[in-house]
């Protein structure tokens, strides 16, 4: 069995990093577990208290636009989110995901409209396929550099391995 099942949290287009992790906390909330408590605070008040490890985000265009703050990835990572699926990511957010070992997966247009929060997403890494509610798509390939960082578990792990 290579297929894993995940519960989806579904959002729309242009979700910005200020609503994923509000700027007012950036210099006072430091610990990852504390950062996670504010995840999506200004977008979805139910998220942080109900998210479970293994859940996935499914979004539309331009997920993670706005500030470069990396805590917008950290917040979701420490909620147990390991995969974020979106029609498109902001470039900065995409890089921040890779560097923290979170897999950003591009999906076809309107995939986020075919499912709703609470639905099940099936991921088959061996076959490179994702499906939910009868909609299926292939996981797009990543460049060798990006794969290398992700497989190391993120940029910190990679640099540690290099310097150690």
């Amino acid at each position, binding site marked *: 069995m290579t297929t894993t099942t995940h519960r989806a949290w579904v959002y729309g287009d242009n979700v*910005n990093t200020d609503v994923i992790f509000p700027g007012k906390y950036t*210099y006072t909330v430091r610990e990852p577990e504390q950062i996670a408590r504010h995840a999506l605070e200004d*977008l979805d008040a139910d998220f942080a208290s109900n998210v479970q490890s293994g859940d996935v985000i499914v979004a539309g*265009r331009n997920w993670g636009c706005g500030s470069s703050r990396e805590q917008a990835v950290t917040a979701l990572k420490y909620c147990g989110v390991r995969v974020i699926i979106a029609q498109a990511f*902001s470039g900065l957010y995409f890089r921040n995901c890779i560097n923290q070992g979170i897999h950003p997966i591009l999906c076809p247009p309107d995939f986020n409209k075919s499912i709703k929060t609470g639905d099940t997403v099936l991921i088959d890494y061996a076959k490179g396929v994702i499906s939910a509610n009868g909609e299926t798509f292939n996981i797009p390939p990543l460049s060798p550099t990006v794969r290398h960082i992700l497989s190391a578990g993120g940029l910190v792990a990679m640099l540690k391995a290099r310097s150690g």
Partner: protein
Amino acid sequence: MTGYTFAEKALGRAAGGLTVRAGEVVDVTPDLVFSHDNTAAIRRIFQDEIGATTIKHPERVAFTLDHAVPAPTTRHAQNHAEIREWVRQQNVAHFFEVGRGICHQVISEEGLILPGELIFGSDSHTTHFGWLGAFGMAVGRTEMAALWLTGQIWLQVPRALRIWLDGRPQPYTTAKDVALHILGRYGADGGQYRSVEFAGNAITHLSLSERAVLTNMMAEFGAMNAYMPPDDAVFDYLQPHQERDYTPLYPDADAVYDETHHIDISALTPQIARPHRPDNVVALDEVAGTPVQQAFIGTCTNGRYEDLCAAAEILRGQRARIRLIVIPASSHVLEQAARSGVLADLISAGATISTPGCGPCMGNHMGVPAPDEATISTGNRNFRGRMGTREADIYLSNPYVVAASAITGRITDPQEVL
């Protein structure tokens, strides 16, 4: 064989003089990297997580303190203290204390980055440095730690998009309105992490300050970087400060662009971004009359001397009816405004002046609105909760409009109050 974009040339140079094309992945060596109040968090990644000890090129590193200055709480003060200690330990070449100003403005004023060079900042508005013909790109904290350690980073050479500017602005219409128009017309993801390269006859007529507004705001467009072709005005500005030679870079006439957007600046009127997105843009007259309780002039986008002059032009001899917060982008801007009398004009009109820095833009420490209040701001972002209060509204505009709105307490066309 077709020509090269600015991005291809600049990243080829930074990759050690290679010929590179969009799509290639290269290791590049920046001329400068910088961070701000987030430096302490980067230090923790560097030392505590990676286990590294020494910044490889401290002579190419700059830190500013700007996001929450002067420190509003013990926690913020500790954060600043850790950064000062790190500067001493690592012999960091360029450190700018509380009050010197916002990273992008200060590094520009100090001539620390030059045309054709590559700069990385752990701040999304690092696109700013395109105003002087440099390649400026934002990175996250972990990537900044990696840059400290290795002095290099990988990136994919971006595709490019050209924005062709023609015409001269109408009165009380500025580069901010051009930027908001671009966002409104093409959307917040219109940049698609490409190199946004400005061209056209209008550029020579834009002041350096206005050029910076455009390249700065391309962060809101999702650009990887932005670029203005540097001319004598840029070279003259940098001349007193520069400590090394540089070679300005220009895209070839037959460079390959995904698309070219043509904008006639002379057809534009003042633009407003409504809550809660910078690309939710309408012409001023569509929202004129909307009540606002706070007006804010400042930020890396519109906190320069020219912006304070624009506000003073409207406010001179008048009185703000609502809270009016003016925060110069740097100590140089503040000093210039003090010497010229612009500062006195603003204070006489009821403005309160605060420490050069980011101010209330990101809800860290001051100028936080109450729930259900509306702020009109010269800043760059109006996302929900941006200024620290989820239930507050933020409208973005140029400094003339913010000043006029401060006088009436509602969103106002500057021509109405003259």
